[in-house]
């Protein structure tokens, strides 16, 4: 993104906040559902800087998201590589994987509670489940649709099988893996926040959002929602930066 795009993006954002301000100050929207931007920012200021109570929630959500994402990446890439490489594995596991990813991950949360208890483990496990399936499918796709000509080059030059895998097939799949990771990261954050809204949570942005909503502390709810948005935005950008560095050749 260049300098001009950044400016335009900020102007548009400011415009949205202005509309929000007008809508609330003219009382076009019930103040019970939507506080003014100022109130929301005040709440954010109090919770982030004065009482600093929001930080422990941010770190709790971030911790669960990152742990779940890393575990999902390890599992998803490993299984995805096998799934994409071996025709036998693909034809035997393909349908099961397709079915598994069709189940909304959050529908499985009660099941995971049974297995993992009400601690962090259950929340992380749902995140891992949802994210690893996406990464797995993207990785397998990347391997299966590796460039045919480059595979022919590796074969014509009699590159040993292991080297063909590490030097050709893995980088061939890398852009697809990266795309999977990006979707999976956003999904992990969503799933973690949703699970935090359920029992057994005393910390986390999801917990804070649902708590604030239950007692109609609406500005607090919006503050936590905005923080969740910023978190997702930053995580996604970090991953994109890493992606540009690692797979610099992609799309050129």
């Amino acid at each position, binding site marked *: 993104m260049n300098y001009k795009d950044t400016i335009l993006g900020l102007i548009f954002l400011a415009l949205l906040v202005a509309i929000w301000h007008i809508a609330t100050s003219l009382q076009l929207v019930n103040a019970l559902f939507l506080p003014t931007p100022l109130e929301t920012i005040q709440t954010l200021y109090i919770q982030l800087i004065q009482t600093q109570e929001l930080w422990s929630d941010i770190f709790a959500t971030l911790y669960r998201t990152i742990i779940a994402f890393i575990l999902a990446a390890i599992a998803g890439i490993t299984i995805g590589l096998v799934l994409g490489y071996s025709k036998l594995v693909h034809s035997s596991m393909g349908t099961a994987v397709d079915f598994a990813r069709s189940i909304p991950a959050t529908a499985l949360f009660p099941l995971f509670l049974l297995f993992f208890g009400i601690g962090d483990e259950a929340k992380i496990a749902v995140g891992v489940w949802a994210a690893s399936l996406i990464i797995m499918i993207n990785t397998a796709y990347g391997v299966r649709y590796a460039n045919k000509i480059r595979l022919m*080059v590796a*074969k*014509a030059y009699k*590159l040993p099988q292991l080297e063909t895998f590490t*030097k050709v097939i893995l980088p061939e799949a890398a852009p697809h893996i990266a795309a999977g990771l990006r979707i999976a990261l956003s999904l992990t954050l969503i799933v973690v926040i949703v699970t935090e809204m359920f029992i057994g949570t005393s910390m986390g942005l999801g917990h804070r959002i649902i708590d604030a909503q239950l007692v109609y502390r609406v500005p607090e709810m919006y503050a936590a929602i905005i923080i969740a948005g910023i978190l997702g935005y930053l995580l996604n950008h970090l991953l994109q930066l890493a992606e540009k560095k690692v797979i610099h050749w992609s799309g*050129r």
Partner: protein
Amino acid sequence: MLLIKNLNKKINESAILDNVSIECKEGEFVAIFGPNGCGKTTLLNIVSGLDVEYTGHVKINNKVVADAKCGFVFQNFHEALFPWMTVAQNVQLNSTTGKKWIEKLGLTPLASRYPYQLSGGQKQLTSIARAYAYEPDVLLFDEPFSALDYSITLKMQETVQKLWMETKKTTLFVSHDPEEAVFLADRVIVLSQKPGKIKKEITINLPRPRTAKTRMTKKFFELRNKVIEAFTK
């Protein structure tokens, strides 16, 4: 030395190559010229071991295909290089003599660049360096310059000739351009429309090194016309 004997290839009962026999002597430069779909690429794929479903015999330096080394220069240079490898890494794909060939082909200043930072001609030079660095028994070219500018193509042809004169590597060069075939080869083999069958073999006895001037000589025209005549007949 490359020996192809009674080669037949079918895909779903439809014949692609019909009893093709070619013998390239050690150090000989043979060009294959024929219409699109005459099985030229199939022939190279069989020689290089990419295609194993055929009948007939292929021997390279008295070795079976599986044991022989072929330096294959592909037509589609945009895809045939590995975009995540530098020029040097591409050239050294499965060899240790890359450095020598990078220097020889004038690629040293580009050695640490990636393919997306190269022009088409530079990409194909990298492919050629890779083929030589592999220390192959035989070199295979599959219409390597068909997507390049005419002026660059001329330069590339001179480079190929120069390298061949220095190394005397047995070479099989598939071309869709009769002038290119005549300029480069000791012998031009003209294949027929599908199924590919040998129509004619024309010996090119032009002195080397052949230059831009050679292309203007009467002898060159005569040979080129002979190739075209065999092609159209």
